[in-house]
């Protein structure tokens, strides 16, 4: 028996030691180690993806000879089929969205047509938008070397908050291709469009990279941003073509069309070759069956990643939070950077690192100096880090699309690669790891947006009116928005003169509107340990639960104690402390139905009123997570109107279930918990994007016991209706999850720990699905 084969299947500490010994004495190859992994009992599914031959086609004769020479200079003598397709669509004046995996030569899909156009017409301009600054810089160097090889007169510049003031005028007048991000377009470019007349008069292409990131609130904002862009382009007489690229999602064409309001062509087939890939679904072994406790997925991730890294196999580890990223870096450094191993073979990578540090890490990964990296989703997008052999996912990333993106970070165009998804004990992860066929067979999630969210719309109508007076007859995103404008006029933001609405406030609206959240309102966190200084910001919606008085606020691994929350001034005052616990707020949520839009038997969707109140908090010890105390809080109720899916349980049948009242309530709450988690699987959303609540039907708000799964944003972002439509598979999956969970009464992996919760939840499910 191969010694290492046992290690992964067993949870005995002794066998882990064996792994270390073996690694030191007998470094094995990737394929050898694969065999060991395959034998592990904890692997719930092994999936093999065969290699794929590239589909290469001749460079089209329509390509300008100068561009062709540069291509040939780079050793590109043929194009992948998707690159050729996009070139042809672009020449035909179409908008297109290119959906191909990471490292499939996606950038050429837009670089080629854009450079061709500029070579043909030196007045032509293009705007490239990336969702993050890091991606912009990653692309900038490459694009600049293209432009330089082609013609030194082609200006390629990045324009964002880091562009020095004195360089901005030069960028505006000389840039043929401007690389920026939506936030800068929103705050820095559109509100000053008269300085950008050259760009807007000649704008022929807008490139939108990583389209799939523009979903939810961010996407809803960006859709409105493009409505504003369209108005400005119309003013200057241009109508740019859009080229989008996206990771695999279910509705790329639809999302692109909703975002830009234009018809799109889809390029969905990648012509790039791919090496074979071995995918493992790994569920940490159970250590206490009754309570359903499994071994820590973080420890397991350390262990598996460590095993690869010790064999000198380059690996990337993805964690789902900044905190876990840092913890894993420390664990892996402790284990690997000892003895003859040089320092910094393992590094962390996440938001909050300085740009220079990030560039160094990216270089180190490309040239192989850095062997392992632990990252948040920051490296999920297309930043060039070369190719690694192994991707270890510590926890399910939350969406199928995101999982494929992360797994795609390991893999070369030829040769083999390995991806291991390690499940945590949340219901979401447990469902995926126990039903990998769902993951493997399901098309990835939808990118959902709701540009008509009234809050978002109000924000952008302010910006739009600021940028250009709004004509009385003008439509916005195809809608007649007169009523909305009238509301803004009532509030004194705009004023009608003649046939136009004008901005009539001395503020700069884009400044107070963030594209990444619904409400512009936020709290600043002020550290008062020494000289007062602002160390962070908290969204209004999460402020009461994260920076309430006596909370421990975590920032950059440091703990701060909140000693005052000044609500009118929107400030939280904190002091640096060294505490061994963190705090978890207790929130009471009440949901009231305002209007039912659609209803079938006990299933509904419509508009609801949600009120949250943070009523207290628990103190939870680091690492052991024991509850070491609590406190009461008296904070204002937060209310919002949003959209929701809800399911009602017939009161008679609920009350006739053969359980105690408490047990019935536990079951109802447990079912809500499991359903909310699984709803995230079926909608492409983060767990925080949706909320769940239960109304037991006792205090008169609802006559029937009800479970609400609502959009956790004022006004809703369009998830409730799709959830209503896919309720059958979602409920079926919930049932499957609960039934197949190995615990007795209920555990964090299914309905949460409570007496008989599992049994009751299944009984209630039975009532609602057979209603």
């Amino acid at each position, binding site marked *: 028996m191969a010694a290492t084969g046992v290690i992964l299947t067993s949870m005995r500490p002794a066998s882990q030691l064996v792994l270390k010994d073996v690694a030191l004495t007998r470094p094995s190859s990737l394929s050898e180690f694969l065999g060991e992994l395959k034998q592990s009992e904890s692997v719930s599914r092994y999936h093999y993806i065969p290699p794929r031959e590239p589909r290469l086609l001749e460079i089209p004769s329509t390509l300008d000879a100068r561009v062709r020479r540069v291509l040939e200079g780079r050793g590109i003598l043929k194009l992948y089929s998707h690159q050729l397709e996009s070139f042809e669509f672009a020449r035909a004046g179409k908008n297109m969205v290119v959906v191909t995996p990471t490292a499939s030569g996606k950038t050429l899909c837009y670089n080629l047509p854009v450079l061709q156009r500029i070579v043909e017409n030196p007045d032509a301009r293009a705007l490239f938008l990336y969702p993050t600054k890091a991606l912009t810089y990653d692309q900038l160097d490459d694009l600049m070397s293209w432009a330089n090889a082609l013609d030194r007169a082609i200006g390629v510049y990045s324009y964002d908050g880091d562009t020095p003031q004195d360089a901005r005028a030069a960028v505006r007048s000389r840039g043929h291709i401007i690389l920026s991000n939506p936030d800068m377009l929103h705050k820095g470019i559109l*509100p*000053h*469009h*008269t*300085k950008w*007349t050259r760009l807007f008069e000649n704008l022929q292409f807008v490139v939108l990279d990583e389209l799939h990131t523009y979903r939810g609130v961010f996407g809803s904002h960006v859709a409105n941003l493009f409505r504003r862009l369209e108005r400005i382009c119309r003013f200057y007489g241009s109508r740019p073509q859009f080229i989008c690229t996206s990771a695999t999602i279910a509705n790329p064409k639809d999302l692109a069309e909703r975002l830009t309001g234009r018809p799109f062509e889809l390029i969905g087939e990648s012509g790039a070759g791919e090496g074979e890939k071995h995918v493992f679904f790994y569920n940490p072994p159970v250590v206490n069956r009754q309570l359903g406790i499994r071994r820590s997925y973080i420890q397991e991730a350390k262990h598996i990643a460590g095993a690869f890294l010790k064999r000198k196999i380059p690996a990337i580890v993805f964690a789902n939070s900044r905190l876990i990223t840092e913890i894993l870096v420390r664990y892996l450094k402790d284990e690997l950077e000892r003895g003859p191993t040089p320092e910094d073979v393992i590094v962390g990578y996440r938001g909050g690192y300085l740009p220079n540090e990030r560039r160094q890490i990216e270089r180190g990964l490309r040239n192989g100096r850095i062997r392992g990296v632990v990252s948040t989703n920051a490296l999920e997008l297309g930043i060039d880090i070369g190719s690694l052999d192994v991707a270890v996912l510590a926890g399910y990333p939350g969406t199928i699309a995101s999982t494929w993106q992360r797994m795609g970070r390991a893999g070369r165009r030829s040769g083999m690669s390995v991806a291991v998804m390690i499940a945590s004990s949340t219901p979401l992860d447990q469902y995926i790891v126990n039903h990998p066929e769902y993951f493997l067979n399901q098309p990835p999630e939808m990118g959902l947006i709701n540009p*008509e969210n*009234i*809050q978002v*719309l*109000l924000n952008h109508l302010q910006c739009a*009116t*600021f*940028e*250009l*007076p709004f004509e009385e007859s003008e439509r916005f995103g195809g*809608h007649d*928005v007169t*009523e*909305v404008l009238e*509301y803004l006029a009532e*509030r*004194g*933001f705009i*004023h009608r*003169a*003649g*046939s*136009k609405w*004008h*901005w*009539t*406030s*001395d*503020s*700069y*609206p*884009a*400044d107070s509107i963030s594209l990444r959240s619904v*409400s*512009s*309102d936020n709290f600043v966190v002020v550290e008062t340990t020494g000289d007062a200084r602002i160390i962070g910001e908290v969204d*209004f919606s999460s402020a009461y639960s994260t920076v309430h008085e006596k909370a421990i606020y975590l920032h950059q691994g440091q703990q701060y104690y909140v000693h005052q929350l000044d*609500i009118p001034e929107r400030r939280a005052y904190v002091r640096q402390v060294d505490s061994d616990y963190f705090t978890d707020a207790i929130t009471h949520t009440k949901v009231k139905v305002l209007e039912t839009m659609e209803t079938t038997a006990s299933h509904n969707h419509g508009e609801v009123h949600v009120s949250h109140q943070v009523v207290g908090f628990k103190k939870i010890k680091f690492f052991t997570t024991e509850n070491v105390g609590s406190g009461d809080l008296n904070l*204002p109720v*937060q*209310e919002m*109107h949003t959209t929701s899916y809800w399911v009602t349980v017939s009161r008679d049948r609920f009350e006739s279930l053969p359980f105690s009242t408490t047990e019935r309530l536990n079951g109802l709450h447990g079912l809500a918990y499991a359903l909310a988690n699984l709803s995230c699987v079926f909608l492409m959303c983060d767990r925080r994007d949706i909320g769940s609540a239960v109304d037991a039907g006792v205090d008169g708000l609802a006559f029937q016991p009800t479970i609400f799964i609502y959009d956790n944003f004022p*006004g809703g972002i369009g998830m409730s209706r799709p959830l209503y439509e896919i309720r059958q598979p979602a409920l079926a999956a919930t049932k499957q999850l609960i039934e197949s969970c190995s615990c007795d009464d209920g555990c964090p992996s299914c309905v949460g720990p409570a007496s008989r919760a599992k049994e009751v939840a299944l009984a209630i499910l039975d009532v609602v699905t057979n209603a």
Partner: protein
Amino acid sequence: MPDFAKALKRLRDRDRQPYLTGLSPVAAFSLSEQLQFLKPLPSNRTTTNVPVFQEGLPAGESESTSFGSHYVVRKSFADDYYHGKVRLSRFCSGELQQLMKLMKQRAEVGERDRIVFLDTETTGVHGGTGICPFLVGVGHFSGSDFKMIQYFIRDFDEEPSMLLALGEFLTNFDLVVTYNGATFDVPLLETRFTLARLDNPFERLGHFDLLNTARRLWRNGHGSCRLIAMERLMSFMRGPDVPGAAIPRVYFDFLQHRPTPQLAAIFTHNTYDVVSLAALTLHACDCVGVAAPAALDDPLDLYSLARVLENSANWRRSISLYEMALGGGLPEPTRTKALENLSVIYRRIGDNQRSFEICEELMRSDVFSLLAYEGAAIHHERIESDVEAALQVIEVGLKRLDGFPHVGLADAESGSLKRWRALLRSRWERLQQKVIGFPASEIA
């Protein structure tokens, strides 16, 4: 089709709850609070006070263009008008040309009647295309009179007409003079002309922004260079005035609830700004003119002017102003800086002895002057060909630097100490090399 009406109704309900409103047009102070200091409007300033007319507007007339109409207020300041102690009609375009030359401004001045002074009142100061100039004041000389025209829009739809008239009016001029117009008024108006799809009149106009000049002449002596602060130089007092920050609100109030009594005060404010701009331009000309320094009595102002003259290679006048400033008494570190500059200028014009004397004086001073040691060493080395004496001077300087405390210094201070030491050190090494024939660093 989304149901906006329903969503808005819910918002209106929500707006009544104070903690939940994310939407309010920046109201730290109520309008009435903002405006209370305006109440006692100036009553006895005959030249700038304007009678109030219909809609709270000062007496003027509605004028029509092919784009519609707008409102224009005109007034005139006669030959004998004094703005504070400055008689406006003394203004001379030749002197302005000299001032601008001194400030390295290339624009041509031309005739006095072809200079226009401009200031705008706007709906905000943040910049961006949503800021509208609702009142543009322009002043110009016509014969011996100074004429003032104010273009005003009674609502936003009058803006194209106003811009058309303004653009046409500006064709009568070659040079526009502003206060901070380079960063504010001119780009703002250019944006508005673009938005109205009109030709940009500023493309063919020369531009002189007096703010930068004012800073160079008066910041050392007076600190703030806001136009209102500058008026004190001319002994002009405005009396009660609308603070700039309140102006947008007054206009918004007018748009909503006309008439607004405070609106007239903005016309007055704008008139002050334009006339003060013209008067301050004249005052600046006086200060740098050959007849000066009669207009200056503050040593710091003399020093400022000396620097301006030094920068434009007016050595002789610069020397005499530095000497006068020093004679009048300058505070440190300005005194040291003045002596250093003087020493350099004397060397430039060939008066090596005087230059060296100043270096010696500086070396005796408590304030360390790098330039003094360098200057003295240069003098010894090049003029007297005495390398040994030059080395000694540098050694004295280095020794003095070694005597400075090493701890407890601000970063900037310890930074300059380091820099001084390095500079003296490398000079010393070069001199040493000259004596011994090979680099000193190779000895050890």
